[in-house]
């Protein structure tokens, strides 16, 4: 193992400085405590908490999880106790977490986001707020906030008005042009971007002839989506200059480095914890080993190093075939 003190692997997310670039992801990592038996949480940059909503939610019926080639589908349905209970019973415990805890806010209207964000950001246990905008806007035929630049901007602006704490808008890959959404979020005042959430998908049980998830559709995560997520980071990094937390299928240090080289300042680890709960530490150690081998002292120096433009004019002629 490499002597980590010789290397600067810190990442800045607005005014928040993470000592390590590795982040446990929302919905995958509980409050961090669930993984404490397996990893030294003080060697994580942060934990993003499960998304919380205005009202309590029981979430979706089971099955909520289906395993797929090199990935999985989930449809948890944002089970959470609602912001009131959360503030009263849960948040105080996060003071014990040996790394930064980032709150995650979900909602079904712009007002939802502003309300929950304001209440949560007021708490000192919460270092920053992530906006999970992959939710449908009930006032807008259920259109997903993150799939529309204007809806994205409205959520970010409303949240921005409630707090000075670092804001992270979490983008969806289910769009044709993620750069436009990223620009809208940045113009509306987000400090950073999480890129990306899960890709929509489903699976069918051919014997029962029905969808395998209780909720029919779900979000695909894991190694299967890594190339998709990596391109999203690459494109967002070209469009805006705020820090990016790259995520989607990161399992190894090599995967994490692909995201950093594409332009992410930090990396999120979700599904990989299910394959091995030691993943965040293995990844950190691997990043340090790479830095030692490549003689890189400061991780920031290689952020975006592989993002030097499109290779040739054929780019405009499409990707497929």
């Amino acid at each position, binding site marked *: 193992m490499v002597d980590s003190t010789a290397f600067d692997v810190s990442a800045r997310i607005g005014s928040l400085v993470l000592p390590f670039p590795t982040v446990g992801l929302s*919905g995958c990592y509980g409050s961090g405590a*669930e993984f404490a038996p*397996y990893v030294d949480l003080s060697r994580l940059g942060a934990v993003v908490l499960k998304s919380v909503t205005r009202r309590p939610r029981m979430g979706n019926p089971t099955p909520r999880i289906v395993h797929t080639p090199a990935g999985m589908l989930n449809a948890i349905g944002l089970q959470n*106790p609602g912001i009131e209970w959360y503030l009263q019973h849960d948040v105080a415990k996060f003071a014990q977490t040996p790394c930064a805890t980032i709150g995650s806010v979900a909602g079904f209207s712009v007002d939802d986001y502003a309300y929950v964000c304001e209440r949560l950001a007021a708490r000192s246990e919460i270092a920053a707020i992530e906006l999970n905008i992959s939710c449908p806007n009930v006032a807008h035929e259920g259109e997903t906030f993150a799939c529309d630049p204007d809806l994205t901007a409205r959520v970010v602006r409303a949240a921005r008005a409630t707090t000075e704490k670092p804001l992270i808008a979490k983008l969806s890959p289910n769009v044709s042009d993620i750069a436009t959404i990223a620009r809208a979020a940045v113009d509306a005042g987000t400090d950073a971007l999480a890129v990306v959430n899960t890709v929509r998908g489903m699976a069918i049980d051919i014997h029962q002839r029905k969808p395998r998830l209780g909720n029919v559709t779900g979000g695909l995560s894991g190694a299967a989506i890594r190339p998709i997520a990596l391109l999203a980071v690459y494109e967002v990094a070209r469009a805006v200059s705020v820090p990016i937390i790259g995520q989607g299928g990161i*399992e190894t240090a090599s995967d994490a480095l692909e995201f950093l080289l594409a332009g992410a300042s930090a990396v999120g680890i979700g599904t990989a914890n299910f394959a091995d709960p030691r993943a965040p530490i293995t990844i950190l150690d691997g990043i340090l080993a790479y830095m030692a081998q490549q003689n890189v002292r400061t991780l920031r120096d290689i952020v975006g190093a592989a993002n030097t433009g499109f290779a040739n004019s054929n780019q405009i002629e499409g990707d497929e075939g």
Partner: protein
Amino acid sequence: MTIASPPSAVVPTRILDRTEVARDVILLGVEAPELVRKVRPGHFAMALLPGGQAAGVALGIYEARGERCSLLFFLAGDRTRRLGALRVGETLNLVAPLGNAFDCGGTARDIAIVAGGVGIASVLLPAQALIARGARVRLFYGARTAERLVEAERFATEGCELQLATDDGSRGHRGVVTELLARQSAPEAILACGPTPMLRAVSAYAQERNIPAQLSLEEAFGCGVGGCWGCVVPILRSSAQAPSFPPSDADGSDVVHARVCVEGPVFWAHELRW
């Protein structure tokens, strides 16, 4: 179920033996002395796949004695197939022990264990514990075919009375195992593990007769350690296993979604609301 899991860890184990006990059913013995000391009847492990790229697989801990634990599993899909390809001498990482355990104490002396399919893997340790404390244990065990009634003899050797059923009648009663249960003298207590329809039938049987029944549930798992809320089951909010659960969103409902991997996998039948 009052017995909480001792702190789990990632346990690197060496594979000691591998037997295909029936077609597509693998028994894997691993060297894990520390785990043997910690494990209680009903605990499970997340078996991590060599090479990653897929979530670990939840497996009951079948045997635990001396230096050796074992896992008994069916080749159901990609991940169990990858586990099944492991060879003697290779390393298998287990996150274990996990979950709450069966309560094998108490004074009941006539106990029925009901197992269906892969559920058999989670009931050997409780059977041993119950027999060790002098209880009579009848194993009601159902499977699709005679070939799938794996390890039945093993349970007989341990001192269980066997009551077998197969869907096709190729061995024992033709039909479901709960029919067999209903035909016989009622036990004082029930422990059960198997597919959900079987557990529902056991639950109905037990509640009609006011017999305390502990059910070990199966759900599709994500993390297996409480971090993802992928594995829930509706239970009574006021139950012992949901001590500090928030109110649910359904007005006036006292049902909450508890995690099978942490609040379970063993639940009291009368507290489930499924």
